[in-house]
């Protein structure tokens, strides 16, 4: 971790915080309004890679813990970690790590929307949701299968977000490679 890595990690955390203050935006063509913050999780992994992506999401969680309103809707504080949805939050660094790892390992394929979407879906859904559902089931005291059933509603929306994040990641990586002198996978 040199200075640049540390600053990138910090600024991506600030970026994810700023996304919380984005008004809900709509995906063109589909027209579903979404909150932008969870895009930041997948983008952190996709742009920064596994380690730095996970660290920057960890920083956001640290800010939440020390009592700053950095989550969507101006939420924050220790209470968030005590609530039934805390698992999704704890899943952020893990999701960023998983997405980042896939982008690093298969960087040659990451410029295809299909693969890049898959990487984002693995992190944003297959890693994030199990952690979230597990915590929901434990803290809410409801059986795991019921908890899974209850959260399936959110999966279609999250798939759309993952595809959006994947598209953004591709464009960002291309632009960084083309105009700012970064190698394909060395941001």
């Amino acid at each position, binding site marked *: *971790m*040199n*200075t640049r890595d540390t600053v990138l990690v910090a600024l991506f955390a600030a970026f994810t915080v700023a996304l919380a203050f984005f008004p809900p935006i709509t*995906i063109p063509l589909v027209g579903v309004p979404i909150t932008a913050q969870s895009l930041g999780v997948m983008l952190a992994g996709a742009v920064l890679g596994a380690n730095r992506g996970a660290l920057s999401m960890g920083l956001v969680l*640290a800010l939440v813990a020390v009592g*700053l309103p950095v989550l969507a809707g101006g939420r*924050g504080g220790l209470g968030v970690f*005590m609530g039934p949805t805390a698992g999704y939050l704890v899943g952020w660094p893990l999701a960023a790590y998983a997405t980042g790892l896939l982008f690093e390992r298969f960087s040659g394929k990451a410029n295809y929307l299909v693969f890049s979407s898959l990487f984002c879906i693995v992190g944003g859904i297959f890693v994030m949701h199990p952690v979230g559902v597990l915590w929901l089931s434990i803290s809410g005291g409801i059986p795991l299968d019921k908890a899974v059933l209850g959260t399936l509603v959110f999966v279609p929306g999250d798939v759309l977000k993952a595809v959006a994040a994947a598209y953004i990641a591709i464009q960002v990586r291309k632009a960084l490679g083309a105009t700012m002198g970064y190698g394909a996978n060395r941001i």
Partner: protein
Amino acid sequence: MTASFYIHKESWLHRLAAGRKLFCLAVLGTGISFVSDLWLLAGALSLCVCLFPAAQLRLVVAYNQVRPLFWIMAALFVAKLFTGPLSDAFVVILRLCILVLAAGLITVTTKTSALLTVLERVLTPLSVFGFSAPRMAFALSLVIRFIPVVGQISQEVREAQQARGLGTNIFALIIPFVLRIVKMAEQVSQAIDARGGLPDAKPSPAVMRRSQAVRRSVSAPMGAETDQPH
């Protein structure tokens, strides 16, 4: 944009050391999962609520802690009704309310800087795995410092894209936003290197003082936080 949730008052709860408050929360969180007696839980809940006036805070502050959870709690309550007796549903909701209130009480009665210090102390043992607590503290103060700047960038990008009629296009908004973040990171890291680079990976007294000074200067204008002599 990011004033903290801290509310300054002069009470014994405000004066209590941050580490002790967090320790109590951890004990409460562990202990409460073994309690399923409705009356005991109701008593604990009323105690939590009473602690807010004890900290010279109005009751609406307590209400604000639980209010965002209203819908998810309602959903949980309904889910519990279908899977077990009514008392179980109440137990779960009461437990959640107690924990969220207690945690919220710590958040509103403890300065951000005090919580940051505890966080740094708690994470120091992780240096075994190559994790550097001083650098994390430095990165955290960077984030806090740059949230307004990043917000400003987001505003600029939005205005530029609105002029092109792309003000609601998520891609037109976020792609340039990310690119500007990466570019700014380049400049900021050069600026930091020009001023002596990152703090040492291992905490030394001088560095601790410096990072605390940075943090104080960073957090001072954000809220009503003032460093009172104790």
